[in-house]
């Protein structure tokens, strides 16, 4: 599905953001990429659809080398990769429906785009998605009057309108409150699983990554230092990724879950109640 081979990126400033990164995603799983700021998470995601031009290495998506493609082919590749952003990046003055339909820009001709004449099937798919992400009735609301969580739902829907074969998700929850963050993460993971679409998710929050991802890749200084499941994350792994720190409170949840599932359940329950109280 996705194969990244010895991918490197050195910016014009001389910063080496990625240093021979290689990994394979061969099943529809949600892969969280964790790492400190500046580790190259954003660069990695943006290299895959070449919003950032890689310096060397290969990116193979469904047996085609993306790095070798010309502009025209690249646009075709991009329309098969849905992207979700931290700052949502909706076109603020357009309505929710128009923002969703922008996911079809790679498929629809110029004049149809100009006259906003999208195929009926696309509009129907958009309504279905709005319903699925809990925004039915919002189609004519302008994007700039939505809340953060609502905007991200539109952002997710826009990406899914592309019927992508791969989801690239860049810090989807970093601008959201804890409760909305969990809802948005849950939505992304559910949709990825429902549609059998693999997803690469950059994420700051180790806890969120552990609770939602099928697999976690740890990036430090542009290199992969960890590749495994949530359970395999130990204090040593976190130190490898982020550097020396007291990780006991961060990985407590994992130890609890491995020691006693009940304890974790209770902790989760308590947390949930606290959050709901806080939300009110």
């Amino acid at each position, binding site marked *: 599905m996705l194969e990244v081979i010895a991918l490197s990126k050195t910016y014009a400033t001389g910063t080496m953001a990625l240093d021979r990164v290689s990994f394979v995603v061969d099943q529809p799983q949600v892969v969280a990429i964790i790492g400190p700021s500046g580790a190259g998470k954003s660069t990695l995601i943006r290299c895959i659809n070449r919003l950032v031009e890689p310096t060397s290495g290969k990116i193979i998506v469904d047996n085609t080398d993306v790095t070798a493609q010309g502009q025209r082919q690249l*646009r075709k590749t*991009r329309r098969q990769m849905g992207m979700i*952003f931290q700052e949502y*990046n909706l*076109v603020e003055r*357009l309505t929710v429906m128009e923002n969703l339909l*922008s996911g079809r*820009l*790679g498929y629809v001709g*110029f004049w149809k785009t100009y006259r906003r004449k999208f195929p009926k099937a696309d509009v129907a798919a958009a309504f279905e998605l709005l319903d699925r992400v809990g925004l039915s009735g919002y189609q004519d609301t302008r994007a700039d009057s939505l809340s953060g969580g609502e905007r991200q739902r539109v952002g997710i829907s826009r990406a899914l309108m592309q019927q992508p074969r791969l989801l690239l998700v860049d810090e989807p929850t970093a601008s959201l409150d804890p409760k909305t963050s969990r809802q948005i993460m849950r939505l992304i993971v559910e949709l990825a699983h429902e549609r059998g679409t693999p997803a690469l998710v950059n994420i700051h929050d180790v806890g969120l990554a552990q609770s939602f991802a099928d697999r976690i890749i740890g990036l430090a200084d542009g290199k992969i230092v960890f590749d495994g499941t949530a359970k395999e994350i130990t204090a040593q792994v976190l130190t490898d990724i982020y550097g020396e720190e007291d990780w006991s409170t961060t990985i407590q949840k994992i130890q609890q879950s491995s020691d006693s599932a009940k304890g974790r359940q209770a902790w989760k329950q308590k947390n949930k109640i606290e959050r709901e109280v806080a939300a009110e």
Partner: protein
Amino acid sequence: MNTAAEKHIDPAQQWHQIRMIENPLIRHSLALLVLLYIFWSMLSINVDWGRFLLGLPRAANIVARMLPPDFSRWELLIRGMLESVQMALAASFIGMILAVPIGICASSNIVPKPVYLMARAFIILSRTFHEIIVAIFFVKIFGFGPISGVLTLTISSTSFISKMLAEDIENMPPGQIEAIRATGAGFFKLLIYCISPQAMPRYLGVSIYRLDANIRHSTVIGIVGAGGIGQVLAASFSRYDYDFSLAILLSIIVLVFLGEFFSNWVRSRLR
């Protein structure tokens, strides 16, 4: 503990404002030099107060001859005003259209560098000379009349609107452009689906503002012969028809007021 405090100079005593020029001698002598130069320039202007005093009764005479304003040649007046408004409208409209491609090409965030540099050079070049100079030039080429005026105002409107449009596009959050590119949209789809909706209200606002400015400018460039009410005004001055001049001046005030009012009203509705 006391000895340690004595050894270290207390930073609170040491702190002072960071200045652009740290050396006080250089700082103060520079300020003195600037003041001296201003004083010297004023001396060298050589104001002849005698001539100023002689002018005062002449001013009183002109004002007396201006009153009351003479609206008897209202047909000429209206024709001049209409010509000015039409010049302004035509120039604003053409400028608005020409400004779109130029403004887009002058936005560094969406076009390649060479295109950007060329468009910027064009904008800077067309902004170099004041409208009066451009108008004199066109009057020499195309003769007296509104054609020269429209051409002059078109050039200034195009460069103004395209500069504003380019600035607006460059100030767009890069994320939106990135997101639309990530859907596989090419340059033109990006323009109509992302740049255009985001830049449209300000573009229209700037264009309307330019229409208002063009009405004002059209009254000025007429003085060098580029048509409109300014040309009528210049003629009335040279014929010492001061009462008619005042009528024209009053009408220009009303026109500019109306233009400003209209422009503000339209812009307040654009959101």
